[in-house]
């Protein structure tokens, strides 16, 4: 058995065929039915389609419970998700036929609109699940976000040690940069991220000045000799600064960028659910109001 089986092709797409059967059946019934009044939810076919649609919605929402019941033996979660997707799509046909194409500014159409919103967000969700995981793997390989975080922490520690050996000023700068390293934060920050770490620009400047001084030293050989002792010290310092910039601006920024991208992709992957789930509960309420109201004012 393949390691990964797409929810769309689960068991030979069996739920696709079920959903298709439902749709074709409903369309045929709608075509054959010759109601005495213009088609609407109140004919016998209308009641039938409405009942089936309601049961489907409840079944689809039960997926949210089933997927948390790890010990349940009622099908597999993959199977449930496959059914969730295909039966959800079938709902477009069933519920639309249930309306008899009558729409208005009322609770009934609100319920329909919410249902369509949930389904459309779900379709986008299916796209997300087929699209973003690949990008996430491309971005961070097999490293989990936790491992990336640990690598960043190691770099921070190395950088602190290194900086404390260079100078107090450099140490403070690195300390500040560690404190101010931004990852995530608000919704927008997670979704759009932040590119550069401004606190390290000073460090870059420092490294550049140091290199410049090393070059000018070659020009005046006498001075170089005179200051050889100091220069030796400085050479160490320069090498350490180079290491430091490599750590913080090279390795750490790369990791941060990877992590930010990972977060971003994960957020893209999950964002639709923040519409799909709340709207499905709003739909449940609208559906309740719809059913109660039509029989309340029969």
């Amino acid at each position, binding site marked *: 058995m393949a390691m990964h089986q797409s929810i769309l092709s689960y068991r030979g797409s069996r739920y696709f065929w079920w959903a298709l059967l439902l749709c074709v059946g409903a369309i045929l019934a709608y075509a054959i039915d010759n109601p*005495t*009044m*213009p088609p*609407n*939810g*109140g004919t016998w076919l209308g009641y039938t389609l409405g009942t089936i649609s309601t049961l489907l919605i409840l079944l689809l929402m039960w997926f949210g419970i089933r997927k948390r019941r790890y010990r349940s033996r009622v099908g597999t979660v993959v199977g449930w998700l496959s059914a969730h997707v295909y039966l959800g799509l079938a709902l477009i046909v069933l519920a639309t036929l249930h309306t008899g194409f*009558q729409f*208005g*500014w*009322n*609770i009934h159409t*609100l319920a329909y609109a919410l249902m369509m919103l949930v389904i459309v967000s779900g379709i986008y969700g299916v796209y997300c699940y087929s699209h973003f995981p690949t990008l996430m793997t491309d971005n961070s390989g097999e490293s989990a*976000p936790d491992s990336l*975080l640990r690598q960043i*922490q190691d770099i*921070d*520690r190395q950088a*602190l*040690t290194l900086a*404390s050996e260079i100078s*107090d000023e450099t*140490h*403070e*700068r690195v*300390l*500040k940069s*560690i*404190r101010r*390293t931004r*990852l*995530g*934060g*608000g*919704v927008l920050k*997670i979704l759009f991220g932040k590119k550069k770490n401004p606190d390290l620009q000073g460090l870059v400047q420092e490294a550049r000045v140091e290199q410049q001084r090393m070059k000018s030293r070659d020009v005046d050989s006498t001075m170089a000799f005179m200051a050889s002792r100091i220069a030796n010290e400085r050479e160490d310092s320069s090498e350490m600064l180079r290491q430091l910039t490599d750590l913080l601006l090279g390795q750490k920024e790369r990791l941060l960028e990877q992590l930010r991208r990972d*977060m971003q992709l*994960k*957020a893209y992957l*999950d*964002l639709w*659910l*923040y519409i799909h*789930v*709340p*709207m*499905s*509960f*709003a739909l*449940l*309420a*609208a559906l*309740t*109001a719809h059913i*109660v*109201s*039509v*029989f*309340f*004012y*029969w």
Partner: protein
Amino acid sequence: MQTRVRHIVHKRKGTVVQNEQLFDKSVITIGRSTDQDIFLSDLGVAYRHARLTISANGQVGVSSLSNAGIYVNGRFAQSGSLKGRGEILIGPYKILIEQGDAPVDIDIVIEQVAEDIVEVQSENMPALTLDQTWLSRRRGAWVGFFLVLILFLGLPLAGFFNADTGEVLRAIPVLPGDGAWESGEISAPHRHFADDCNVCHVRPFEKVRDTACVACHKSTTAHADPELFDMQELTGTRCATCHKEHSGTAFLTRQDQELCSDCHRQLRQKVDTRLANVEDFGERHVEFRPLLLTRLNPARDDKAAWQRIGLEEQNLKHETGMLFPHDVHLETNGVESPTGNRVLECNDCHQTDAGGNYMLPIRMEIHCQECHRLDFDQNTPDRQLPHADLKTLSSMLNEYYAYVALQGNYQDADIPAPDIVRMRRIPGKELTPKQTRTALAWAQEKAANVKEEVIEFRSCNTCHKVLRDPAAESGWNLPDVHTSQRWFTKGDFDHKAHRSSKCEDCHDARESKSSEEVLLPGIDVCRDCHTGGNSNDKLASNCIMCHQFHLPDNLLLGDREKVVHP
């Protein structure tokens, strides 16, 4: 000022070591440098990181000497001021500052809360995934669920059970009242009370009752006699079964054939009726049964004389009381008339009412008298007798001949009148009583003769079946005439809808020799164009194209025979 600093260090095996220092100065320095008052060794601390300034009133000011900054009471800052109790975070160290117990003024407790600054940083990491932000599927679900439930179920229900709330909801357009429940546009005639759902929807979870409709539609009639049948049981329908509201501006009425055929296909098995079982106009419908008069001149109480008889019966006849041959009148060469030869068309006599649906009755004065004149004396050919009034006719003849007898100079071609009648009157000379008696006696006899001639031999008998009846006041009995009428009492036929057809397409009048012949077309003629409501090869005709559900008012009177007699 006495400041006590306690440094709590957690050792590996769980033991806790406390170092205590006492300061008696107002400025205390903190840093990784060994010359600092409070020495913190972790790399997360700068050499000279911060300075505490203790005021006499016990207030502790803190300022960062390092770019790395500090956290004062959980907030990142360069400086801050603490009164009473406060907390500073430098690197992995938590520095708790409190008012001390005498003799100590300020009590400072330092504790390492994380392995190093990196760990502190990672513990205080902001949200990395959407789950960790304010976004919440669960919260969104609760809000969405209850918002919709309260707005679209709670508010309308509150409006239903509390009239005042309902008024408020209807008055404020943004708030969804029970108007949000409206399943479709209400029909135009009902718009004026459309705001108030409860005009029709009276009880919750109960279909709209007929009483709600009848409250306004008082004159709507029943489907059958309500005194004889339980309507609910008989039809099994409510008004709303056929009349659908909330289906748009046009008020929809059920038109399908099954509405009727569900019962009428087996009506005889269900109720005691003379109505035949019918199901479909094209496939299963009885031959038309017009209302016919079976006896000439029936007595007023002879209801049995009127019968609905199927057109399939042999020797069908309708006692019109008339002698009228259609064939003679419709001769293609025309008929003689006072103005010459005239070709008659059907609509010269058969004309529709103003609505065009039904035929008006034939009127002697309008349709016949131009040719069939009621003149009676050749001396005065323009003078005509009244139609359909033997009493007036008698007195008119008596008066006329009394007048001419007394007037004199009357010339009678056939039977010579007495001299006194024929003689010209000499001006100024009056008749003697004897002459007067002679003249009037002639007049009386002449009037009686003319009357008999007109009625029995010359005028009335041309068209009417005249019966001599000594018991009658006038001596004759002219039967009531029953020509045009509503032949089909159970159905409607609209001539206007069929005006593109010729009369003879349905009525075979050119060959008809007697007015007793029934010239109505049978169902087969209709079926040339019409078929059942569910077919589509011809004009699909459901039941209510010809029949009504709400039967005429007089059905409600309970006298069923009275309905039958027009």
